[in-house]
């Protein structure tokens, strides 16, 4: 077999101009363009319909509002509370979700026995339960952490369960033919093939986690960015309201990117990561 017919070992050819544009530069161009477009449409709508600043403030006012909010006394405290609730709740969801997903994924009869309960708890609009948790766990952080944990738990648990079930039979055969023990099979095979599913669950879970924290703060207590939204609303301060919303969006973005970064670290070999690599780096 001649070796010259094979692609060069790990050689990465130089990307052509068009490829470079599509792959590496694209986000750097498209993102600002999109941003400018959004701002332009925003201003256009205000001008066209003559919208009052109490309903929809000008973009620059929102930016001004953000600076004001960020500098205001107590903001860091609110941010810290929301972040803490989200992260602690998410961590709990991660541990319980992966643990339970792994157990249910392996023990078929248990999953079948519990299936009605799982389906029911999925169908229940969990946000509707938030007042209940506030009654049970009080107006402090605890009730919000519980809400966050419950919201983030389901996508993580269900994906982990799916992951444990999705180990390729052919790869299992390899381990079986090598007479691998339980631990080796877990560490060399099951762990790696389940991780992508866990990360898919985490990507959904982190978004749900922030929703949980903010909704919890709407409904009870006097701390957190959700509370700040309620205060702005009551004061009919649209500028501040928009500013907090943008800040929350940025926070969500940052947390989501943190999960994606973890994913790249843990499963660099996976298609989902390779796709990201080819389009952004």
């Amino acid at each position: 077999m001649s070796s010259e017919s094979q692609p060069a070992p790990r050689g990465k050819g130089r990307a052509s101009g068009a490829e470079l544009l599509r792959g590496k530069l694209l986000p750097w161009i498209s993102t600002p363009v999109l941003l400018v477009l959004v701002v332009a449409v925003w201003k256009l709508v205000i001008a066209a319909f003559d919208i009052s600043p109490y309903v929809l403030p000008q973009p620059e006012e929102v930016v001004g509002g953000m600076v004001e909010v960020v500098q205001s006394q107590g903001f860091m405290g609110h941010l810290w509370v929301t972040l803490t609730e989200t992260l602690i709740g998410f961590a709990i969801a991660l541990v319980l979700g992966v643990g339970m997903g792994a157990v249910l994924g392996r023990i078929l009869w248990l999953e079948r026995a519990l299936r009605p309960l799982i389906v029911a708890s999925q169908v229940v609009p969990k946000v509707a339960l938030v007042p209940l948790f506030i009654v049970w766990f009080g107006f402090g952080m605890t009730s919000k952490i519980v809400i966050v944990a419950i919201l983030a738990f389901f996508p993580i648990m269900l994906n982990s369960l799916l992951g444990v079930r999705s180990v390729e039979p052919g790869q299992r055969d390899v381990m079986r033919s090598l007479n691998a023990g339980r631990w080796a099979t877990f560490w060399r095979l099951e762990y790696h093939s389940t991780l992508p599913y866990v990360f898919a669950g985490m990507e959904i879970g982190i978004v749900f986690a922030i929703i949980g924290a903010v909704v919890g703060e709407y409904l009870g207590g006097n701390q957190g960015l959700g509370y700040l939204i309620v205060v702005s609303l009551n004061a009919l301060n649209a500028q501040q309201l928009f500013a907090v919303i943008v800040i929350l969006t940025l926070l969500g973005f940052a947390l989501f990117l943190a999960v994606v970064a973890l994913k790249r670290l843990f499963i660099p070999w996976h298609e989902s990561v390779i796709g990201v690599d080819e389009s952004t780096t």
Partner: protein
Amino acid sequence: MRETAAAGQGVVDGRAPSGDHFIEADRITMRYTTRRSSTLALDNVTLSVAPKEFVALVGQSGCGKTTMLRILAGLIRPTEGTIRIGGQHLWHGSRRDEQTLRMLGLVFQDANLFPWYTVEDNIGLPLRLRGASKREWRTRAGELSELVQLAGFERSYPRELSGGMRQRVAIARAMSYNPEILLMDEPFGALDALTRDRMNLELQSITAATGATVAFVTHSITEAVFLADRVVLLTPRPGRIRSITPAKFERPRTLELQSDPAFQDTVRELRRQLYEDEGQDR
């Protein structure tokens, strides 16, 4: 050539004519039972392979080739019958004999590589499971990469390789611990004709060099006759041995052999039997 009884009339004995048996499958019956149906995949199949012999299993789709190989590999336990390898029973009750398993190397139709490991890690996996030191398994992985013409790709991931290259990694992995027996299930099924020819030549030189005993499943009669010492033709529903055909051509074989009249006669005869069975099949 030993033309044997047609399917259904008596049982064809697939034991090695030399009387020297390394792998012995004795009266193997395999019935798959699912909730809906029950399939008799193998019916009373007796087959043996002599030391250093190369046996090819051919037959139409669904005739039980994979089933037979998985039984030889100890991946499934036959409903009836016994497997002995080097005189040792493969199964003790529901447990498999550890020493015997270590003599087997498996190559599947899909390479079944682990995408999270590099080529080197994939090849080294069996040795790592046996507790080899890092230096040991890496050295061996390097040697084997060279043997299967993949030197320079040790650090590549499976996704960066072509189908044929992946299959070669799988072969290297199966050979990493020097198994006396190679069990291969259509290892080159997914390859183009040219690559396949190359792989066949390579497999021949590898088995000649290592003196391995091989059971090889394929769809291609030409491939079977080219590689094997004996070709076992199976018939479907239920899976039985239709005929045993010796392929006594001199080794090492070159691709020119395929235009040899004796070679072509053997291929033609096997093909005739294969189509005959298909005609019978409803």
